[in-house]
């Protein structure tokens, strides 16, 4: 489908210079010296390479339909993530560089949506939040009641995030995997 570059949105897939890219960031930009532009950071779904490009906002861009399938995350190695489609037990391999920083919040065995194009995994949809157990954090100092104060906490996947002082080892917290920001404490 053709759309105007001005309507590009984060997460969309486009065909640009005969390759498929996922939009990482798209900011409308009016430089005051010509028509408005759409400054986009796009990631090549084959190589994982990021490119910054300023499209004219009225320029036609071809968006690409991709499949989104829920799969179980099995494990990762130095280069790839491995998923299994529970419908047919087929295994899929996704390049680590295509996933980016959210990988440190992924938990083996959990289910995530994987994007497929031509039956090849090209990206995954980051969940809005992930629930992870705190495995390491200092006890809060009694009497320290400065509101908004935070401390470091190591989560079960190895990721380190900032959490409020009241969070203790063994508790489960939610984290936005895209920003690494703490959400809330949850009971499981």
């Amino acid at each position, binding site marked *: 489908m053709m759309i105007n570059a001005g309507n590009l949105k984060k997460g969309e897939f486009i065909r640009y210079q005969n390759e498929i890219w996922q939009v990482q960031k798209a900011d*409308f930009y009016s430089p005051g010296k010509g028509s408005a532009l759409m400054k986009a950071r796009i990631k090549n779904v084959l190589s994982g390479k990021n490119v910054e490009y300023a499209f004219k906002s009225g320029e036609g861009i071809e968006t690409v339909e991709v499949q989104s399938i829920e799969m179980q995350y099995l494990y990762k190695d130095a280069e790839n993530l491995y998923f299994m489609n529970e419908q047919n037990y087929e295994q899929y391999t996704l390049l680590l560089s295509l996933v980016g920083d959210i990988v440190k919040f992924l938990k083996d065995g959990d289910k995530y949506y994987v994007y497929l194009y031509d039956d090849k995994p090209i990206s995954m949809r980051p969940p809005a939040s992930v629930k992870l157990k705190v495995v390491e954090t200092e006890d809060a100092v009694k009497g320290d009641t400065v509101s908004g104060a935070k401390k470091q906490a190591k989560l079960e996947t190895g990721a380190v995030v900032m959490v409020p002082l009241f969070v203790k080892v063994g508790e489960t917290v939610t984290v936005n995997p895209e920003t690494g920001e703490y959400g809330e404490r949850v009971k499981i």
Partner: protein
Amino acid sequence: MKITTNVENLNNYQLYLKVEETIHEFLKTRGYLKIELPVLSPALIPESYLEVFKTEFRYLNEKENLFLTPSPELFLKRLLAYGIGDCYYLGKSFRNSDPPSSLHSFEFTMLEFYKVKANYLDIADELLGLLNYICIKLNRITDTGEKTIIYGNKKISFTQWEKISVAEAFDRYAQINSNELFDEDLFFKKAESKGYNIKQSSYTDIFSQIYVQEIEPSLGQNGYPTLIYNYPKKMAALAKLNSDNQTAQRFEFYIGGIELGDCYTELTQWKEQQNRLMAESKERSQQKKIKHPIDKGFIQALQYGLTDCAGIAIGVERLAMIYANLDTISKLKLINID
């Protein structure tokens, strides 16, 4: 859109206030008169690349359209024509159709100052003085007395400008030489060979696309703020032309690839001003932008004769964001709408 309360930004907001206060103080000591202005106006200057906000005044059965000012230029130039002298406005301006982003808000604080009997290079000196003064007030001084800030992970010193002409910048960063830059046909050919889609695009469209794509990211990255000057006359807006007759006395300044301000030596010939305003107005209606009356008082002031002067417009949030070493203007604010 939604409203968010961000009290965690209190420290940044206080730095923003300090920057604002310092600007007032600096301009006052340099003899500029502070001008308070309306932000709602029944008429505006036609500007083809800006969209405006329209509202209306109602009284019983009467209605009148009012527009939020996209810049204080129309009022300040009236006053300059009447001999007000060096002056400035520091307050809100409004631009429609610019979705909120890390560097943009549809309402923002603008500093616009004018100096009479001056050209764009005089403003560049004044501006460097202001940037240094803000460093002093924010205590951004090294042991050796150098006024510097850190932006991103780079040191920026305000001891001097890195000056580069637009033609040099296109040559250095986009491999487009000055023959190609100033000749529309050659420029389109070169742009196409570089992979740009030139269909249904004007010279200014392609210029601006290459500028944003290949040049801007390199500006203000070499340890000093960059002053990029002498724009092709198609990008002259209301700036005076140079004697080469192909460039205009206009500059923009950058830190860390971010545009912070736009300066002109003001065009004072009435005929030429009229031509450019008419072209802008025509362009607006072709683009189906919101119709607004043209400010006749502004036109009369220009006819009466704008004194020789130069002026600059600066985005104050962006400037404070740089001093605060932040990547988005929203982190300076206690209340955000986006």
